[in-house]
């Protein structure tokens, strides 16, 4: 390996772009966190380093493009994977025309649907974790918080996170984007399942402090 260049210092990992056996690769190293006890830190990093490549692989079986994993070094909390040529969806959302944006969000929703159908939740669905790559394929990355589960609750939380990410980062387009995501989602899981998941999202949002008023007039004096 030579010429490893730091391209992104994320919250939990640093990403390096490097050449590895004549391939352009991403080296993802999870960094030790001083703030949490060493024992907890080691446990979290080891778990995610092992877990993420498994889910990246599983996601491919589900039909969702993800980078190919070449090497996992648990001792060093490092994953070496394929470099995806393309643009982060986060950078694109605001620049696309309305119809292109709808198409992209529909495609994202369809991919989430495929993952959920296969029993995978991503756990961190944000537009930073999606790359529009070659041939219009949307690659999903960063499965560190993902899970193998078919629970309705987990699926709903997953989509809730997507909604949250749109609301906080792409607030101008949040509603239209989310509605296309749900359309795409329904195209894969079916209208009935989609409806049940959306209902569950509503329930989750009422559970915490997510809605202004639980019922109309309820909070009014």
């Amino acid at each position: 390996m030579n010429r490893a260049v730091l391209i992104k210092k994320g919250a939990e990992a640093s990403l390096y772009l490097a050449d590895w056996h004549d391939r352009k690769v991403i080296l993802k190293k999870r960094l030790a966190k001083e703030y949490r006890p060493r024992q907890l830190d080691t446990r979290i990093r080891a778990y995610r380093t092992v877990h993420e490549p498994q889910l990246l692989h599983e996601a491919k079986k589900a039909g969702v493009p993800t980078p190919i994993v070449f090497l996992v070094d648990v001792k060093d909390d490092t994953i070496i994977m394929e470099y995806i040529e393309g643009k982060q969806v986060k950078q694109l959302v605001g620049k696309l025309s309305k119809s292109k944006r709808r198409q992209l969000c529909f495609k994202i929703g369809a991919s989430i649907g495929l993952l959920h159908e296969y029993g995978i939740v991503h756990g961190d669905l944000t537009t930073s974790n999606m790359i529009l790559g070659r041939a219009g394929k949307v690659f999903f990355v960063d499965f560190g918080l993902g899970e193998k589960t078919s629970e309705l609750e987990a699926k709903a939380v997953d989509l809730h996170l997507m909604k949250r990410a749109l609301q906080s980062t792409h607030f101008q387009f949040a509603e239209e984007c989310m509605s296309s995501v749900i359309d795409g989602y329904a195209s894969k899981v079916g209208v009935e399942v989609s409806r049940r998941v959306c209902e569950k999202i509503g329930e989750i949002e009422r559970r915490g402090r997510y809605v202004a008023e639980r019922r109309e007039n309820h909070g009014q004096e």
Partner: protein
Amino acid sequence: MKGKKPTGAYCLGIESTADDFSVGLSSFDGEILANVVDAYVPPEGGIHPREAARHHAEVAGMVLEAALKTSGLGPKDLSLIAFSLGPGLGPCLRTGATVARGLASYLHVPLVGVNHCVAHIEIGKLEAAAKDPVTLYVSGGNTIVAAYDSGRYRVFGETLDIALGNCLDVFAREAGLRQKLGLPFGAVVERLAGEGGELISLPYSVKGMDLSLSGLLTAAVCLMRSGRHRLEDVCYSLQETAFSMVTEVTERALAHTEKDEVLLTGGVAANKRLQMMIGSMAKDHDASFKPVPGRFAIDNGAMVAWTGVLAYTHGVETPVESSAVKLRWRLDEVEIPWMQ
């Protein structure tokens, strides 16, 4: 500050969203002249909204008087009345709102209802000298990671179930710990945790920039009941795990927004261990760490007064006839014209 000759404009703020009734006074320049808090301590269990509201009604006159006395101001020196419009417990909010409406009408001064969460952020920014931070707001009722963007405080992460302060409080009650006056449950857990050191594995549940604390609470309570571990170690493990989770989601928001300040505010912000963790994380990202000073960490009237000043001087006013409290008023629904 006593006997100070009042000049300029002053705002009186009333806070009554939950168990504290508080009156604060702020000048329009952001000088806090008084901040008197009277906490309702339930004889047992959690806060009963109606009982807390009764407490607020009982102490309101006394707290008002004490705040004015401390500030050296008289009722005629007030040019604005602010109060917490929400979110919070209905009966408690209504009691504070009633006092505020009465005062504003009697003194013929404008009334402004402020968002309780915004107030926690604004007092933090004022007292910890932050400009445009990523904020971790942790209290008995809220666990929110927010940052300003285009006119509002956007919520990047929050709890999917219970608040961090609530998690610690319920654990303390389940463990039979006693809440002493001046030493809330959180502080009791903090003290015990300081004497623990064995980390017991507990559920760690971060979902994107959101987190879930209810599973952790249940597991910690079971662990405590099993009697297999020292209570100090259970407190230590609960605190370390919960604080690691909130620190991680704050870190995610910080990396995402690329801001260079981290503000820690709300009741749990008084916890020294949490301050250490957030401080350490901020340093890793070359961001400066701004913890709110202790007396402004808990619910207080000063934060409401100061936020009232900010809102009013930027054109926000709440006429009495449309001042109905909002129990579930979200932080990200509030326009923040003073940040533009």
